C-alpha cells in the first residue's frame, strides 16, 4: 500500500515536474525573432508588392523549416502601405510601437522617405529594399538600402548607350514624381559627364494619359535614342503613343521596366527596348532556376518584377543573419544593436542575389544586367560591373 502510494507519488511528481519544465520552457520556445515588412498589399502597386511579400514569406518558411536562427523561429509581420506615404507612416508606426520590431523592411521611395523620421527618432533599423531614389542614402543613421539605388543601374544604362552603342544625342523623358525626377538627373549627369549630349529633357504628370506634349518636344529635338523613366502603369502607353507619333527611336529604361506587361501593352513598339536587372539570372546564380520553378508550380507564372522579388526573398536571410550576429554576441534585440550588427557583419552572402556589401555611405553596389526585347521576349544583352 505504502509502496504503491510512494510509487504513485513519484509518478505524480515526475508528471508535475515535466509539466513545470514544459511550462517554463514554453516561453523560450514560443519566443520568435520579429521583423516588419511594410509593402503594398493593395493599391496600384499591389501586383508587385504582393509578389515581393510572397517571396519574403517563402524565405521565412524556408529558414524556419531548417530550424530558424539558432533554434528560434523568424516571424515576419506584414502591413499594407499601398506604396503610399501616409499609409506607410501608419504601418511603420504600428510596427514600431505596437509590434515593437527592432528592424523592418520597406520599399517605394515615397514610403521610405516618409518613414525615415520614425526610424531615426525611435532608433529602429529601416531596410529599404527595392526603392531606388538616390536620396535614400542620405535619409539618416537608421535608414539603409540593401538594393542598389538609381545611380547604379541608370548610370550603367547611360554608359552603355554612349560607349557601347555609340549614341551621342539622347532625349530623356521621365515621370514627374519621386521615381522619375531623381533618376532622370542621374542619367543626365552621367551621360553628359561622359561626353554625350542631352537634346531634350521632358517630363509628364504621373496621372496623365496623353503624353503628346512631351513626346512632340522630344521628336522635335531629333534624338538618336530615348531614355524613358516612369512606372509600369504608364510606360507602355508612352511607348505606344511615341510610335503613334511616328517616332522610331530605340528606348532604354531601368529595372522597373523589366516586366512582361511592357511588351504586352506596347506590342511591337517595345521591340529593342533595353532594360536593367539588378539581380543575377539563372545562368549567373544556380539557385534562381529552382526559385523560378517554385513560382511556376505555385502560381504558374514568373513573378512581377522578378529581380525585386529575389531581393525580398533574401531580405529574410539578411534579417536572419543580423539576429544571428546578435545571438552570437549576446546582444538584446534593439534597433541600435541591429544597426551595429549590420555595420559589423557588413558583407552578406545571400541565396538569390549573391554577395551584398553595405558601404559606409549607406549605399550598395552590384553588377548590372542589361536585357533587351527581341521578338516579344526579354533576352540578355550585356553585364556591366
Amino acid at each position, binding site marked *: 500500500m505504502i509502496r504503491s502510494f510512494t510509487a504513485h507519488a513519484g509518478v505524480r511528481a515526475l508528471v508535475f515536474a515535466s509539466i513545470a519544465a514544459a511550462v517554463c520552457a514554453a516561453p523560450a520556445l514560443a519566443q520568435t525573432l520579429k521583423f516588419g515588412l511594410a509593402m503594398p498589399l493593395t493599391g496600384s502597386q499591389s501586383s508587385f508588392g504582393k509578389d515581393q511579400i510572397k517571396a519574403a514569406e517563402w524565405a521565412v518558411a524556408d529558414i524556419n523549416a531548417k530550424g530558424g536562427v539558432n533554434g528560434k523561429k523568424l516571424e515576419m509581420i506584414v502591413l499594407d502601405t499601398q506604396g503610399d506615404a501616409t499609409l506607410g507612416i501608419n504601418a511603420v508606426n504600428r510596427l514600431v510601437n505596437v509590434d515593437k520590431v527592432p528592424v523592418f523592411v520597406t520599399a517605394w521611395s515615397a514610403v521610405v522617405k516618409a518613414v525615415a523620421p520614425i526610424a531615426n527618432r525611435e532608433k529602429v533599423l529601416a531596410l529599404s529594399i527595392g526603392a531606388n531614389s538616390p536620396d535614400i542614402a542620405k535619409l539618416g543613421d537608421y535608414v539603409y538600402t540593401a538594393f542598389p539605388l538609381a545611380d547604379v543601374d541608370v548610370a550603367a544604362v547611360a554608359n552603355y548607350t554612349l560607349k557601347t552603342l555609340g549614341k551621342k544625342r539622347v532625349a530623356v523623358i521621365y515621370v514627374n514624381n519621386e521615381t522619375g525626377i531623381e533618376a532622370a538627373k542621374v542619367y543626365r549627369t552621367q551621360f553628359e559627364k561622359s561626353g554625350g549630349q542631352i537634346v531634350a529633357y521632358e517630363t509628364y504628370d504621373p496621372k496623365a494619359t496623353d503624353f503628346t*506634349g512631351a513626346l512632340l518636344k522630344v521628336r522635335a529635338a531629333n534624338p538618336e535614342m530615348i531614355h524613358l523613366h516612369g512606372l509600369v502603369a504608364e510606360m507602355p502607353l508612352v511607348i505606344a503613343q511615341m510610335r503613334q507619333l511616328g517616332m522610331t527611336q530605340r528606348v532604354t529604361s531601368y529595372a522597373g521596366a523589366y516586366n512582361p506587361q511592357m511588351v504586352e501593352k506596347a506590342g511591337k513598339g517595345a521591340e529593342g527596348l533595353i532594360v536593367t536587372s539588378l539581380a543575377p539570372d539563372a545562368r549567373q546564380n544556380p539557385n534562381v532556376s529552382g526559385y523560378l520553378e517554385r513560382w511556376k508550380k505555385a502560381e504558374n507564372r514568373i513573378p512581377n518584377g522578378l529581380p525585386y522579388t529575389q531581393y525580398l526573398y533574401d531580405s529574410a536571410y539578411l534579417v536572419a543573419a543580423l539576429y544571428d550576429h546578435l545571438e552570437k554576441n549576446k546582444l538584446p534585440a534593439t534597433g541600435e544593436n541591429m544597426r551595429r550588427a549590420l555595420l559589423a557583419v557588413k558583407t552578406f552572402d545571400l541565396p538569390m542575389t549573391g554577395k551584398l556589401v553595405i558601404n559606409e555611405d549607406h549605399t550598395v553596389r552590384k553588377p548590372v544586367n542589361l536585357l533587351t526585347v527581341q521578338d516579344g521576349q526579354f533576352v540578355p544583352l550585356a553585364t556591366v560591373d
Partner: protein
Amino acid sequence: MFDLPILLQIGWTAVATSAYYVLFAIAFALTLKVAQVWNFVQAGVMGLAFYAMWLAMIRWQWPHAAGFALGLAVAVVVSAAVEAWGFRVLRQRNSSSLMLFIFAIVLAEFISYLLTLAFGTEPETLTKSIVSEVHLVGGVAITNWDLRALAITIAMSLALFAYLRFTRNGQFLYAVADNGPLAELYGISANRAYLLAMVISAVFVAAGVYLYGTRASMIPTQPLELMLFAVIATILGGIGSIHGAALAAVFLSLLQSASILVIPSAWQGSLTYFVLFIVILFFPTGFRFPAWLRRVTRGR
C-alpha cells in the same frame, strides 16, 4: 523647333484627342442647361460605363459592339435612376443648391470607391494594345483612332444639334431650360425633360469613355479629373450654350497641347487650373462670340 510639321502635329493630335473632352463637355453642359444642376454624378456614370465595357470586352471577351452596348445601357439606367430618385426628390423638397451639389459629388465618390473595391487601381484599357495604324501625311502622324474619334464626335454633335433644333422633344428641352414653370403651363412635363436630358448625356458619356478607353488607360479616380475639363469648358463656353461648351473643349485641348511650346512640360498639368482662374476672373459668363457668329450657332 517650331517648324510647320510639329505645329501641324500638335494641332492635329490636340483636335483628335479633344474628341472625348467634347463629348463629356456636351453631356455636362446639357444637364446644366436643362436641369440647372451641376451634374458631378456624371463622373460616376463615366466610371460605371467604362468598367462595364471593360468587363464585357476584356474579361468576357464579347465583341466590341456588344461591350459598348452594355456600357451604354449601364450609363443610361444609372443616369435615369439618379434623376428619378436623386435629383427629383431633392428638388421636390426645395433643397438648396448646396445640398444638390453635396449629393452629386458624394455619389460620384461613392461610385469611385465601389469601383476601386470591385476592380482595384490597376490602369485598364479597353483593348489589349492601344496601338492603331499610323498614316504619315506630310510629316504628321494620323492614326486610325484619330479618324474614328473625330467621325464619331462630329456625327453625334450634329445629331444632337438636329434633335434639339428640329424635333418636338428637343424644343421641349429648350423650353424647360428657359423657364421650367412656364413650360409646365404649356403642358410640357419638366420632369420628363430633365430625365431626357440625363439620358442623352448618358449616351454622350458612353461614347466618350469608349474613345478614352481605347486610347489611354483608366483608373477609378480618373473620371473626376476628366470632369474638371468638361466643367471648365462649360463655363468658358457660356452656361446655357452646348455648342459653346463643345468648342471650348476643343479650344482648351489645343491650348493645353500648344502650351508645351512655351512652358516646360512639368507645368502642363497646372495649365488647366490657371485657365480656370482666368476664365472665372475675366469670362464668368463665357467667351462672347461676335454677334453674327452667335446668331448662326445658336440657331434661334
